[in-house]
């Protein structure tokens, strides 16, 4: 699965100037794109959704694209983040920023729990085990009705104004909401960029490319995998927390295995193992879903068919294909 992956260390061709530039300043470019993004979208709620799913896919892609493990259980990471953020507000009346921290912690924690069991397996086993464990998380949250609202979802995560250094900001105003969430997403992009550019980021890719050689070079492959999975949980937990604040409720569907599948689709559509791929995939996917669902209620049919076509004819995804062109 490495054909589509971005490798910074490869010597660029003559026409690759823009690609090199984009790689060097990727966090900045992402920030700029996110800042002007709502101006080009038909409505802000869609833009917020794209940010959140883009962040979710960014976290997923760390495991899928960079580490090379296909996880089918990321809904558990997103959902636990959302539930912990929601529970912190609904049951403990925590301030919004502490609730977001609770969500990130939830993502990290559940990723650690799932990771410890699943990380020794690989390939299809990893996909199956993560999916099964995430179903387990689904049932646990489903059963804990007092805490999670069970089938009805967790309601009442109402944030009207947020207090920022003494400033009262109206969180109900869509554009304000967008930029508050955007600030977190941009920060996440920056952190992700730092992780990938760090020596640890190089180890992650080394484990994907040649596990044997990575082990021979003295790296602890299992620990690298586990740590990467836990980090991914942090990003997805943040996405879940932001989702909870954005929707004001946490539906139980967030833990459904289709939410895990959705992020695989998004990452594949955008281009796995590329920095911008997940966000582009999320944008294309959600805009597409939006257009198709206006036209027919059976949008899943169209989406599924497009997904099949992607796997068959377009495995590098949108951004992955562009990169392959740019490098040449």
């Amino acid at each position, binding site marked *: 699965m490495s054909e589509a992956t971005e490798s910074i260390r490869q010597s660029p061709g003559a026409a690759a100037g823009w690609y090199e530039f984009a790689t060097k300043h990727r966090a900045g470019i992402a920030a700029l794109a996110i800042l002007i993004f709502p101006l080009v979208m038909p409505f802000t709620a869609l833009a917020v959704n794209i940010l959140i799913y883009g962040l979710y896919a960014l976290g997923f892609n760390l495991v899928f694209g960079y580490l090379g493990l296909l996880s089918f259980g990321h809904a558990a990471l997103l959902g636990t983040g959302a539930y912990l953020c929601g529970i912190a507000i609904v049951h403990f009346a925590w301030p919004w920023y502490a609730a977001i921290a609770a969500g990130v912690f939830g993502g990290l924690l559940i990723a650690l729990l799932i990771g410890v069991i699943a990380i020794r397996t690989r390939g299809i086993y990893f996909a199956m085990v993560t*999916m*099964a464990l995430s179903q387990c998380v689904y049932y646990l949250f489903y059963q804990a009705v007092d805490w999670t609202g069970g089938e009805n979802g967790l309601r009442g995560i109402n944030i009207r104004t947020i207090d920022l250094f003494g400033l009262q900001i109206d969180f109900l105003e869509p554009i304000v909401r967008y930029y508050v969430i955007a600030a977190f997403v941009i920060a996440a992009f920056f952190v992700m960029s730092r992780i990938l550019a760090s020596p640890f980021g190089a180890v992650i890719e080394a484990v994907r490319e040649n596990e044997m050689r990575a082990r021979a070079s003295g790296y602890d492959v299992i620990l690298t995998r586990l740590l990467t999975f836990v980090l991914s949980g942090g990003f997805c937990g943040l996405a879940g927390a932001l989702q909870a604040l954005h929707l004001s409720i946490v539906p139980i569907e967030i833990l459904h295995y289709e939410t895990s599948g959705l992020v695989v689709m998004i990452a594949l559509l955008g281009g796995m193992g590329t920095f911008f791929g997940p966000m582009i995939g999320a944008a294309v996917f959600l805009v597409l879903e939006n257009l198709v669902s206006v036209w027919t209620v059976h949008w899943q049919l169209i989406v599924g068919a497009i997904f099949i076509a992607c796997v068959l004819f377009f495995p590098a995804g949108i951004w992955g294909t562009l990169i392959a062109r740019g490098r040449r």
Partner: protein
Amino acid sequence: MAGLSFDLIALQLFAGLALGAIYVLFAIGLSLIFGMLTVVNFAHGAFYMVGAYVGLYLISLGGNFWLCLVAVPLLIGLFGMAVERVLIRPLYGRGIDYPLLLTFGLSYVMVECVRIAFGKTGYPFDTPEVLQGAVNIGVGYFPLYRLFVIGATAAVLLALWLFLEKTSFGLIIRAGARDPQIVRVLGVDVSRVWLIVFGIGTAIAGFAGLLAAPLQGVIPEMGGTILAEAFVVTVVGGMGSIGGAVLAGLLVGVVVSMTSLFAPEMAKVSIFALMAIVLIVRPQGFFGRAGLLS
């Protein structure tokens, strides 16, 4: 715990075996396809669901249940072969992730097509008249239909075993699972073997869906839940091992049934706890080949 007699526990054990029989049928198809084609069929649940719906449709046309038991596996098997030929075959040699993702997308399409054809809400599926009622099995009265499910599963297993062990085509299949290259060198058309194996696997999935229909009714989402649970069965039993699928399927059925007797709220979670324990003790499952994991 005063109300728990030996008879009740024994009856619950039988109920677990009947539930386990459905898991076994579902998981052997999954395992057969994986063992042979190294394809994890994420659409297996969709084939199972379509099997139940085809049965429902045939009965609404005036067919009876016994006819369905023959027609449904045939139709789903042919459909599975068409899917293998058109969608999965181009992906061979491109790693295991691509077929997995493709079948995942396919399950979306299949579920949505069924929703378009039959609507989003479920249907009840009547137990065939001769199989209604209960029989005394020594420890108490047990639903006849559940006994039938156990018997039908045993029959399918026996037929599959005879086919794989006693026919020359079964020999080719077993050889193809070991080393497709050598089989190809010997002049066997391996892609035809894979086509037929995928057809058999999906046919059994459709059969399982039909058997499950009178127990739980028919809804478009019925394949999704059992898929996750069947993954547990295949992981516990060992990926690609048919014997492992049988043993683990029955074990999972009994575990679910027993926990729903003693701690109903933990019934769904118990499956996954079982998997976690097995994975920690024996990562490759009961009969799995270690090479697939490490």
